């Protein structure tokens, strides 16, 4: 399972980079979302995966003993997902405005502000 998630994270990252390198604004957003997902999966698997082992002190024991699933990475990616949801909502509106104002979604033609 861990290997599968690692591969999935890598695949998301690769797909994200590929989309980022395209010229379309919509693909740019999709690429960033993919890379974001890749990071979330990476954090999820960072400390190893444990199935069916909730971090609860078992009957008759004083402290939590290994193995147990670490709840912190899940809390972290939950936060990261919520934040990226808000940010991408903004970004989608932004590219819609850019499309309306400039009349195309070609990144190569967004050069007016370049130094």
């Amino acid at each position, binding site marked *: 399972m861990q290997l599968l998630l690692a591969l999935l994270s890598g695949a998301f990252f690769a797909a994200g980079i590929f989309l980022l390198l395209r010229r379309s604004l919509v693909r740019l957003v999709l690429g960033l979302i993919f890379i974001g997902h890749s*990071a979330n999966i990476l954090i999820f698997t960072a400390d190893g995966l444990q199935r069916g082992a909730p971090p609860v002190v078992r009957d008759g024991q004083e402290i939590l003993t290994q193995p147990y699933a670490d709840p912190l990475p899940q809390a972290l990616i939950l936060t990261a997902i919520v934040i990226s949801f808000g940010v991408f909502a*903004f970004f989608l509106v932004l590219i819609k405005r850019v499309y309306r104002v400039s009349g195309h979604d070609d990144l190569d033609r967004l050069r007016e*502000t370049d130094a």
Partner: protein
Amino acid sequence: MTLMILPILLPLAGAALSTLFRRSLAMQKIIAVLVSAAILLSSALLLRLVLAEGMQVMYIGAWEAPFGISFIADTFSALMLLLTGVLGFTVTIYSLSGIDKMRQCYGYFRLLHILLMGVSGAFLTGDLFNLYVWFEVMLIASFVLMVLGNERAQLEGAVKYVVMNLLASVFFLIGIGVLYGKTGTLNFADLAFKLSTVTDHSLVNVSAVLFLLAFGIKSALFPFFFWLPDSYHVPPPAITAIFSGLLTKVGVYALLRTFSLIFVHDQEFTQPVFLALAGLTMLTGVLGAVAQNEMRRLLSFHIVSQIGYAIMGLAIFNAAAFSGAIYFIVHVAIAKAALFLITGYILATRGSTKLKELGGLLRYSPFLSILFFLSAMSLAGMPPLSGFFAKFALVKAGFEAGQHLISAVALAVGMLTLFSMTKIWGEAFWNERSVVGDAPRPAITPLTRFEHSMYLFPTLVLVALTVLMGIGAEAVFEITDRAAAELFNPTTYISTVLGIE
């Protein structure tokens, strides 16, 4: 203790209150001025407290480190908070007339509050993931501030700005993930403590590089700087002033904090990287600036160049260089914000910031010219202004540490900075181009006396600060020396936060 949380709570309250009064612009203005003054006051009191009683630690929700999130105010953090207070206050006053009514009606002051909250949080937190959250708070406010006004150039600049900063956030997250997988903690002090026992540095170095990428993009280091000159010149100069003063400095703060506390065990690997990046950042930034003929773009390139100096302090890696870097960050935030505020005044009264379309400012606005001259010379590093002492401390530390090349680059870049500042001075202020034959072009929107003073008073405050920081350099260096000593020798930091001996 409560003093520590005020720089975060006050702007939050300000944002909430101005949302309640969203129909009354007058109330929003009063709230903005009062709140930013209160932030300034509380951050000044916090610095005084830290200087008198040492580092302050606060465990949020009373969850002790490393389990909960801790807020830590050491001398460096407190000094950065005071800087936030000063810039927040001056830019708020300036915005009363420096930001047009449409932007103010669409929630400018609220966004400014949220931006200040994010910046204060990033300076205070002692937890890596919490730092990410504060970065995002700050970024989302800055995204909206950048597009506020809906001009075509703003939208275009914002696309570049948003994409690069979102990418940086992803790298930051991946770095956090790798580091958490290795150590099982996210608390700065606990990370430093745990990593000191780690012998295999390969995975730690991977996350170090990811953090370097993330913070390098956010602070506009070479070679990740290109988004900054493409986007910082599009919003109104008041917004650029607060961006240049605070946002990139948060990136530099994060670099200084993490690479002096957490990633210190493989310096043969990190220090040469930083030396090269610092030198190249300085050089490319200033060369880009020399080629520009528009004040806002020119100054945006200088932001990049100045970041190199701050990183140079980190690259030399000793207490004297840290002290110089911290002094430099404070100096450049103030001098740069002053320059952008002056640019905003020129834009409002002359209708352009292109050097070719300006001229004769020395004759028409002698007071403004003095303010510009002082802040430009301070940026270029002329004694007795703050820029001189900042560069002097850094270059001296560089030569003493045997880093001759980077010190020579720093001196050469100082010369080029002086050159591009005199270029603005010569074209916009000294040149009598628009004087010949006819009177000066009138201001595009005639300014009232009140508006004039609202433009010039905050600028005067910032310029006075850069002069005072130069004249009273010894007193400032006492504070930065202390901050640098705490950074360079983090054992007190670690033991205070973790509560161990």
